[in-house]
């Protein structure tokens, strides 16, 4: 069965951006595409785009990379070029003819000399360098085995010696993968004279050479083969056809690893990991579910979130700077981080936090200022597609990762993602890095210009549908009154039967608002209960899911209710705010909508709007579908 073709949308989008001269945005699109599941065609397309990007505008760092080896390496070129591009590196790649790697450094006329590389990857097969070690192992004496290893080591040393006569290029040597079918079978790994032991000795000897030489490293290929699995790594047909012992999976994995070295050499590794909280570090929403109902603990999915936190803690210990960017009441969120028994990432592990109801792009700008690190070293992880889109649009230099997979899959996804932080140095300073940032405390934060929120809202293509509650929505409506705590003006709880009774009473109207956008259907996300009373309409209940805070859904919903009040012919609309520990977020809602206070006490504040103020426009970015008809976006 043929695989469905991945839409070439990204190619069309990148083409369009290039045509507009938007090279940085074009690069960001390619980068984002390469962080999703990729195939060969995507790699080829991406590597072709590399050649069309203006290096300066796209802020790419150039690197001259040579691939030398004892077997065919050419097919890796577009993959390596694409992966390097996603790490901001514009790689110009030279491939040596296979098996002339020694001549390349010795000859003055060689292609390698003329290419003058910054980095050389050396991929050698044991079969080529020491065939007896592979095919006649048991026919060799101990002394002969040692001699084979010594010869291979000498070959590497003379390669480096010759190279260093004319080049300071960094050299990365591919280590040997342990034999998967060692000659002594089940005995081999325990036998000191076994084949596996000889290969380990070989790799150790090469690592000694690397340690003694400057600018030389050994890449651990064994780990890559283990991750992929030998049966997926080695392709016998390609070997027979073209002396390419690698499958396309192997080529991709190698290119990924090679890119991490390039990233480390060029200093373009990312440095900061910024995390959302709800449904990212724990399951559920603290503001809605409460301390005891969020998913974090020994049962799935809580256990997956615990494991994810452990992976992130490992990154902290490695020197990656951690920060939080979350839409929440700060106290509630901090309480989880400080007191929840299963929480691993306590506040002390974070260098800075933004837990508020502001625009998340604005928060990232402030974090960048506070940490004194530029946004192109930031990685942002969030489960919410809309928030991710906001950041991608407003701050393309941030690497935004939408992590909404099944929780069980996320720890490994984070482990793989962590490659963007890889460097080639580690010291006690790295362990202490986060603490150093915390100690310095928040600096003066400047308000920065971020790309227009309004344009972002418009790009979401949001549709709001408002209907009176009916049989099909009654259950959800009741549930919302019971579970919504943050954006809830009066926190009145209703069961289904109570709501039903209200509706039948004839004095009440209950409305639900449903939201759809480019990323999907959020379902019913707001509810209002109106009561007609003596020439006025009283808003008994007005609440909204915190998932959609920040898009002025509440303003649009209220606009509808005011239009309804107008058709009822009332003189005023009364709103009420009853403060609780959780709903301070909504305290200024009516004030912001032009209502005036008519009564204030400790338990409640009453607000009033007169009928001459009922008429207003919906926010321009909503397409409204209400009992008054379907209205496309209202642009003045």
């Amino acid at each position: 069965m043929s695989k469905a073709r991945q839409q070439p949308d990204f190619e069309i989008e990148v083409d369009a951006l290039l045509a507009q001269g938007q090279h940085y945005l074009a690069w960001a699109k390619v980068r984002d595409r390469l962080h999703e599941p990729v195939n060969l065609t995507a790699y080829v397309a991406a590597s072709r785009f590399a050649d069309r990007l203006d290096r300066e505008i796209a802020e790419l760092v150039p690197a001259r990379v040579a691939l030398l080896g004892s077997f065919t390496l050419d097919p890796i070129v577009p993959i390596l070029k694409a992966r390097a591009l996603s790490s901001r590196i514009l790689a110009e790649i030279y491939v040596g003819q296979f098996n002339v790697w020694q001549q390349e450094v010795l000859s003055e006329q060689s292609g390698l000399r003329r290419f003058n590389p910054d980095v050389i990857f050396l991929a050698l097969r044991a079969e080529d360098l020491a065939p007896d070690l592979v095919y006649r192992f048991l026919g060799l004496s101990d002394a002969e085995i040692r001699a084979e290893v010594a010869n291979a080591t000498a070959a590497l040393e003379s390669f480096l010696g010759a190279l260093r006569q004319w080049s300071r290029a960094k050299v990365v040597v591919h280590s040997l993968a342990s034999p998967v079918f060692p000659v002594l079978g089940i005995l081999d790994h325990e036998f000191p004279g076994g084949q596996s032991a000889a290969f380990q000795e070989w790799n150790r000897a090469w690592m000694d050479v690397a340690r003694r030489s400057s600018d030389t490293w050994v890449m651990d290929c064994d780990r890559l083969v283990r991750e992929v699995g030998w049966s997926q790594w080695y392709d016998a047909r390609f070997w027979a056809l073209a002396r390419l012992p690698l499958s396309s999976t192997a080529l991709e994995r190698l290119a990924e690893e090679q890119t991490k070295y390039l990233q480390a050499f060029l200093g373009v590794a990312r440095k900061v990991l910024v995390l959302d909280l709800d449904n990212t570090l724990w399951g559920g929403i603290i503001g809605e579910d409460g301390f005891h109902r969020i998913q974090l603990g020994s049962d799935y999915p809580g256990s997956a979130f615990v494991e994810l936190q452990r992976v992130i803690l490992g990154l902290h210990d490695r020197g990656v700077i951690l920060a939080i960017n979350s839409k929440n009441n700060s106290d509630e969120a901090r309480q989880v981080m400080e007191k929840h028994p299963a929480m691993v990432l306590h506040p002390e592990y974070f260098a800075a936090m933004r837990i508020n109801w502001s625009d998340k792009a604005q928060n990232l700008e402030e974090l960048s200022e506070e940490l004194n690190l530029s946004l192109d070293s930031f990685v942002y992880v969030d489960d919410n597609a809309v928030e991710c889109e906001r950041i991608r649009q407003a701050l393309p230099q941030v690497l935004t990762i939408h992590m909404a997979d099944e929780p069980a899959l996320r720890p490994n996804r984070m482990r793989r993602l962590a490659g963007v932080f890889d460097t080639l140095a580690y010291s006690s300073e790295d362990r202490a890095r986060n603490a150093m940032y915390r100690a310095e405390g928040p600096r003066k934060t400047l308000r920065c210009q971020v790309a227009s929120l309004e344009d972002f809202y418009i790009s979401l293509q949001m549709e709001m549908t408002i209907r009176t509650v009916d049989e099909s929505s009654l259950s959800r409506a009741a549930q919302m009154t019971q579970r919504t705590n943050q954006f809830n003006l009066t926190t009145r709880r209703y069961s289904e039967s109570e709501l039903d009774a209200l509706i039948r009473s004839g004095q009440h109207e209950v409305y639900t608002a449903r939201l759809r956008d480019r990323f999907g259907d959020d379902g019913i996300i707001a509810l209002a209960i109106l009561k007609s009373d003596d020439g006025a309409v009283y808003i008994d209940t007005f609440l909204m899911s915190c998932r959609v805070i920040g898009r002025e859904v509440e303003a649009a919903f209220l606009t509808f209710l005011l239009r309804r009040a107008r058709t009822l012919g009332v003189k005023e609309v009364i709103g009420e705010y009853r403060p609780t520990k959780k709903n301070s977020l909504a305290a200024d809602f009516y004030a912001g909508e032009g209502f005036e206070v008519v009564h204030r006490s400790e338990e409640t504040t009453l607000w009033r709007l007169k009928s001459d103020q009922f008429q207003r426009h919906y926010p321009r970015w909503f397409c409204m579908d209400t009992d008054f008809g379907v209205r496309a976006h209202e642009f003045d």
Partner: protein
Amino acid sequence: MNSIERGVREVMAAVFGVKPENIDARASAETIETWDSLQHLNLILALEERFAIQLSLDEITAMNSYTSIMALVSQRLNGSQKDS
């Protein structure tokens, strides 16, 4: 044009750097300049990935033209047994 035709054209176009419209029944290793042994390898890698198939060595060496590729890929996708 069915989806197999489209797929093969797109893969060949991507690998050889030509426009899909320019791939027709006459396209072969003789007529396409960039079709050397290395690109042949890339072609096989891309076809296998695109159509989620695994080709035998015999099939790989036989696929040196648009028509032979179409024949082999269609045969493979339509589930018929390879003639021994």
